[in-house]
Structures are given as C-alpha cells and as structure tokens.
C-alpha cells in the first residue's frame, strides 16, 4: 500500500497531473456535449410554442432580409378569387348540398356549373369523395374509433371555444359601437403610425400571438364572392370596403408533438382556436380606440386570402405547399388577419431564401400521399405566379384518414418546421446566409436521409390499403390504447 502511494506520488508531478487532467477533461467535456445535445433535443422550450408569450419567439432579424417587393411575382392582370368555387371547403359544401344524381350539373347554381364545366377533374374528385370516400370513412371510423379517441377528443377540446360568428356587413360589424363596447365612437388621435404599429404588435404578442406583422391591404386578395354579412350569392361582385386599409397578421403554432404525429394524431384546432381568439381580442382592442376592425379567422371565417397577406406583412414566404413558411415556425402555424383603418406603418416583405429552397427541395411533394402538391414549377394563378396545390385531392386525403380533421404532413416534413434548438437554428442560419445554394442542397439531402417518414401510402386508412400510419409516433398522452380498454 505504501509503495503504491509512493508510486502515485512519484508519477503525479505537476506536469503529469496536468496531462492527466487534460485527458480527463476531454472525456468529461465530450460527455457534457452529449448531454447538452440530449437536453437541447427534448427541451420543451424548443417546441416553438405559443406558450412563450409576448414575442419571445419572434426571433428572426427580419430587417436584414427585408425586401421592397414581395417574393411572389405578378405576371398578368390580377383577378380576385371567387371563394365559392376556389376555396375547396366552400365548394365541397355547396356540392354536397346541391348535387342530385338525377339532375347532375343542371341542378346546380350557375357559377358552380360553369366552374365544373371548366374543371371536370374537380367534379370527378368531388363526386368520388361523396360517393366512395365518405362511406368508406364512416365504416373505418366505426371500426377504428377507439384508436383515435384521444386525438379526436383533444382536437374537439381545442375547437370548443369560439367567438360569435360575424353575420353583419363590414360597415356595421367592423365599427365600434358605444352601446356594445362602451368605448369612444370617435377615433383616438394616434401620435404616429410607427408608434401605433409598435403598440399593436406588443398587444398582439401579449395576447399570445407568436408572430405578428402588418401589411397595407392589397385588394387583389379580397374575395370577389362571398363576404360575411353581404350574402353568399349577391348579384354583383363585392366591393372591397374602403376602411380595409391595413391588414394585421397574427399566428400561433400547432402543438409540437401531435403535429409531428400527423396525419392521424395532429389537429389544426389548437392553433386555429388560439389565433381566432387573439384576432377577435385584437379587433376589440382596436375598436376601443375608435377604429374599424374585422377579424378573419380560421377555419373558414375569412373574406380574403391569407397567405399573400402574410407575405406582404413580412412574416414569411409562400412555399411549394402553397402555405406560408416563416423563419421561426416553418409552416407549423395557423394565422388570422384583422383588417382595419387604424393608421399603421406596414412591415416590409422578407426574402430568406424559401423560393430557391422550395424549387429543389420537394420533400413535401414526395411525402404528400394524395399527390396534391406539385413537383413542377410555379404556374400563373389569377395573375400571380405560385405553386399550384390540388385542393380537391388534398381534401380527399383528409377524408382518407381517421385522425382528427386533416393531414398537415406538408407541415411536419418541411425542413423549415423544426424545433428551435441549436442544431436546427444553425441549419437555418447557414441556409439563409448562403447565396450559392450549396447549403440548401446539402441540408435537403441530409433531411431526406436522416429524417425519413413512412411510405406515403401507409398513411391511408385500412379500407384504402393503408395502415393508419403517422409521420412520427404519437405523444404518450394521445395513445388511446394505453388509457382506454378496447
């Protein structure tokens, strides 16, 4: 024992000790980095969630990437959209009500007849949904109901609270009323649009909005038909109300773990509900200042197209799946818009490389089970170039799965939709600041090889040959089999 001590004492002189410490430090430091990574990977704060209030998650330095012109391109004369036919939810709903086998197209409203004559492929898809898909969905839903009971319960819970729908015309419902709101009917004299914008953004963040931006409203984005409070089928195209001068865009993300288990366990209802309530509250705040405000909220209570407004407001860029991709949340968010005459200073659009990235990435198109997302280049839609999404195919896939309302696979697989930890933040930084496109190419390649999903056909319900698959495993609290006896 004594000789051992002496040996150690002899070996561990100062230099020996420092060398041994260096070796031990290398091992401990490496282990520490591994644990750091592990904690960063599972840290709930990296979930890009709305829970971080008051703007803490709107982190991207937009000034560095701001541009004078938005990244969409106007190539022809713009026409406003007829939401009755071009918004799939409205068209499908009209189709279900008006289609009769005995009269066919002849029994439908003129504008629907015209639409289907111009787009017979959509008639085929709408008919397929009604006659084949829905009966199969009903049968499979009964069979596998228990498996998705918690996911559906969660979705319904998030959608359970909803403000009263707006049924009055804009000139009535948008303006403050002394009786109803108790605030001033004369507009408050605001010191400057800059200050007002700062105030509105702070309030939106304080209300729980993760993202907020402001745009001058481009009338091209307002529906030609219909408008809440103006009837569904007016004789003339609806004029854009004069007091819709600015658009405030707000957005909140969908909860991370369910979103990553799309299509069967995710839901849009959580972000829908949060954004809806924020928009109604912000509209109320503006009305209290004596100005007009109208919330346009998800799921379908819009009088305008939302994605281009988000682009105008500098929140992000419209990507291949047609929805907007933001630097902070990717496309994992659901927006709402407030139109107002409150004088504001609009934000500038941003260009952080999405157009270039989406041109070559195509991960969303590869993973889209329905083939709704195009592999091709942009096409002209109502005077603007954009990637075309076949919304009828998209909705038909929604009705080919048993989970809670919808699909959102294009959200889950998008390389921009990643947790806000060091790894993905670094990847975003590299991609955004590389002018050559090499980083995009490398990151897309790594994404495809490192984070693959199941074969897209497995997402379908069993009666359509699928396996009820999800992109990733559902979170423990949505696995019904662990809580409910079958």
């Amino acid at each position, binding site marked *: 024992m004594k000789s051992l001590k002496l040996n150690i004492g002899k070996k561990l002189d100062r230099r020996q000790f420092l060398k041994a410490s260096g070796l031990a430090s290398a091992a401990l430091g490496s282990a520490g980095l*591994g644990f750091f990574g592990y904690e960063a990977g599972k*840290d709930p704060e990296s979930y890009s969630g709305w829970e971080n209030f008051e703007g803490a998650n709107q982190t991207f330095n937009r000034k560095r990437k701001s541009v004078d012109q938005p990244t969409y391109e106007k190539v022809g004369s713009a026409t406003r959209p007829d939401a009755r036919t071009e918004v799939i939810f409205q068209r499908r709903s009209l189709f279900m009500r008006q289609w009769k086998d005995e009269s066919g197209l002849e029994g439908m409203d003129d504008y629907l007849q015209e639409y289907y004559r111009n787009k017979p492929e959509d008639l085929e898809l709408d008919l397929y949904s009604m006659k084949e898909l829905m009966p199969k969905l009903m049968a499979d839903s009964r069979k596998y109901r228990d498996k998705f009971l918690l996911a559906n319960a969660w979705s319904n819970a998030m959608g359970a609270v909803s403000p009263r729908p707006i049924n009055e015309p804009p000139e009535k419902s948008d303006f403050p009323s002394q009786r109803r709101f108790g605030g001033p009917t004369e507009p408050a004299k605001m010191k400057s649009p800059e200050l007002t914008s700062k105030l509105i953004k702070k309030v939106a963040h304080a209300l729980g909005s993760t993202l907020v931006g402001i745009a001058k409203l481009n009338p091209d984005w307002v529906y030609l038909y219909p408008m809440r409070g103006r009837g569904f089928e007016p004789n003339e195209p609806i004029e854009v109300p004069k007091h819709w001068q600015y658009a405030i865009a707000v957005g909140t993300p969908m909860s991370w773990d369910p979103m990553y288990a799309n299509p069967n366990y995710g839901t849009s209802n959580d972000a829908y509900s949060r954004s809806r309530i924020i928009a109604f509250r912000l509209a109320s705040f503006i009305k209290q200042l004596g100005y007009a405000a109208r919330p346009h909220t998800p799921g379908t209570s819009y009088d305008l197209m939302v994605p281009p407004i988000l682009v105008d407001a500098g929140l992000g860029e419209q990507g291949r799946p047609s929805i907007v991709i933001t630097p902070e949340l990717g496309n994992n968010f659901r927006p709402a818009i407030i139109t107002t005459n409150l004088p504001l200073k609009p934000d500038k659009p941003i260009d952080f490389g999405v157009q270039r990235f989406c041109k070559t990435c195509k991960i969303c198109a590869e993973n889209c089970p329905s083939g709704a997302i195009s592999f091709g280049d942009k096409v002209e839609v109502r005077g603007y170039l954009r990637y075309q999404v076949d919304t009828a195919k998209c909705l038909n896939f929604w009705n080919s799965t048993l989970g809670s309302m919808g699909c959102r696979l294009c959200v889950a697989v998008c390389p921009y939709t990643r947790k806000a930890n060091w790894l993905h933040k670094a990847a975003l930084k590299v991609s955004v600041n590389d002018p050559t496109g090499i980083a995009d190419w490398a990151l897309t390649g790594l994404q495809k090889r490192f984070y693959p999903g199941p074969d897209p056909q497995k997402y379908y319900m069993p009666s359509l040959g699928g396996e009820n698959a999800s992109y990733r495993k559902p979170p423990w609290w949505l696995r019904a089999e662990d809580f409910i006896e079958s």
Partner: protein
Amino acid sequence: MNFFNSGLFWFIEGIFACLVVIGLKIWMEDRGIPMPFWKWLLFGLWVLFFGFTIAFIGTNIGENEAAAAVKGGILFGLISVILGVGLWRLLLIRPKTK
C-alpha cells in the same frame, strides 16, 4: 432551464477546454514536438467538429430521432475519426534535424 442549458455548464466546459489545451501543450513539450499556431488552429477546428458530432447525436436522441442519431453518428463520427487520425499524424511532425 436545466443544467446542460445553463451558463454554468458552458463555464465548466470552458474549464475542461483549457485543461485539454494545457495538457496537450505539456504532452507535446515533453516529447519535443513544436506546436505552431496552425497546429492549434487545426486542432481547434477538429475539436469543434468532434463536439458537433457528439452534440448532434445527443440532440437527435433527445428529439426521438434515433435514425438520425445513428446515421449522423456514423457519418460525422467516421469523418471525425479520419480527420482525427490525419490531424494526429500532423501534430506529431517534428522539425527535421541535421
């Protein structure tokens, strides 16, 4: 906020890094191998890449992305080993004596 996301963690990592540098310096001195700035630079870059590899694996395990952890671990780990062996041979170069 847990320990591994805290400032204290990075402070301790910094101490470890200093000890590694001191240890390497003494080890090289004892063997009479000079360490010019370019060797330190290459060593620093390799440490950064190796650290990235370890943290990449840990992060993907934390994210429940086991496939990415394994594939990334193999790819970046292999690159680390190859670069590490090359670097080690470079570090051991002694000046030619007549």
